[in-house]
């Protein structure tokens, strides 16, 4: 399913970016949660959205992710998602 996720995503120096601008509901939520549910996804994740994703917050909280608004382009809502429950890395790993 994750390969067929809607929207665009790419990796940058600051982590994964997901662009869901212009997608009809519920595809932005599907794209974001689909990326977060990948087993190797530990964040941070930057989301480029064109609306306040109010329906997303309960789902993020349930999965142990936090959400912060960061500056973005005009008409963009940019969110930074980070995981709360990352296990500490064992030395040498």
């Amino acid at each position, binding site marked *: *399913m*994750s390969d*067929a996720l*809607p929207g665009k995503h790419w990796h940058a120096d600051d982590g994964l970016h997901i662009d869901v601008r212009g997608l*009809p*509901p*519920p*595809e932005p*939520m*599907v794209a974001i*949660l*689909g990326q977060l*549910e990948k087993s190797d996804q530990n964040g941070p994740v930057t989301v480029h959205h064109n*609306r*306040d994703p*109010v*329906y997303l*917050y*309960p*789902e*993020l*909280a*349930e999965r142990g992710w*936090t*959400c*912060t*608004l960061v500056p973005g382009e005009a008409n963009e*809502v940019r969110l930074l998602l980070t995981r709360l429950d990352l296990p500490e890395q064992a030395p040498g790993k």
Partner: protein
Amino acid sequence: MSIPGSFLGGAKSRLLPASVPFRFFVTACLFHPLAWLALLVGADELALYMGGPGYVLAAIHLLTLGVLTMTAMGASYQLLPVVTLRPFDRIWPAKASFWLFLPGLILLASGMITTDAFALNWGAGLVVLSLVLFVALSANNLRRAGNLPVVAAHGWAAMAMLLILAVIGAILAADLESGFLDDHQALAIIHMTLAIFGFMGLLAIGFSLVLVPMFTLSRSLSAFQGWLQLSLATTAILTISTAIWLELQILGVAAFIIGLAAAAIHLWLMRNALRTGMRKRLGLSFVLIKSSWGLLAVGLLTGLAVLAKIPIPNGPALFGFIILAGWLLTFLAGILQRIMPFLASMHAAGTSGMPPMLSDLTAQTPLKIHAACHFAALILCSTGIALDWSIVIEIGAAIGFVGSMSFLGFAARVILALKSHYNSL
């Protein structure tokens, strides 16, 4: 969850205060046991019921208006502004629609039991006024739903049907006192058809195109099939209404076949949402939702058999019960137990930036009791109707009442958790 105030301002501006949608949801949960109670009292009339005042008519309206329409109003007020990105200009009309609807429905239902003309006419008048306000508010939002044209079209069709059925309902209420209609029963059946399939049915299958993919985390469903579903469903509703008015049996059979085709497309769309969705463990809510889809098919086949004069004992009452309690009430209970904690968490996030967990807001035990009682009530009441055993219907309605009280307990837990979250800030 840390969400700065500026962002919250944007989110909150599109969200009505939690008290607005939740007053509709909680009231719907209160009318749910009342509907079972009215059915319990009117159990001996149910199997042979063909219309007319009394406890069965009151039970039907406590369910259709008190539970189903009440929930549809709350959900529409909550969901449409978020989907269309346009907030309501004012909050008071939504509140006013509630304060017209609630006393109107209480008066109407009591008038149906007592056949008191004052209660019937004033009740019907207040309910119609409230529904006109609801249609106006929803229409104002629907016209901006350009990103979801198929869902908006279902909403438009449902609102048009609601206006027509509300006017017919007011005429029927007036006729109960003065008896000026030549064929009260035919108009009552058209009123019921427009209410069940035209208003609530179209809203259910239309909102499902967004809600079910959202719950299952699937991609958007085929727009073409969505349009086809809507076209067939509206054609079937208009055809059956014409067939009832003109007393054309063959046209009625054709309408049911078209309706079954619409249901088949809907079930296909829902199957695709389940098959392609990322979330596979969907919980108890989807046990109810999936069962409701099966009961839709069973109900339509029962209706077709009745029209085709295939002997089914007390077929008309059985058809009405399976469609209303089996399809619509089961579907709504499934959706409501999913969205109430979700919306509570969403509102809490808008207040503090740290929403309570969905799992903390969802009390599983009351929901399990409700589901067990609901299915037992469906089986017992259907059996009681088919065999014309009022004692079995009474037992079924009593079990349904217990289940609905348990559901009320679940709703109370959501409200208390939300309140405690606000108090802790």
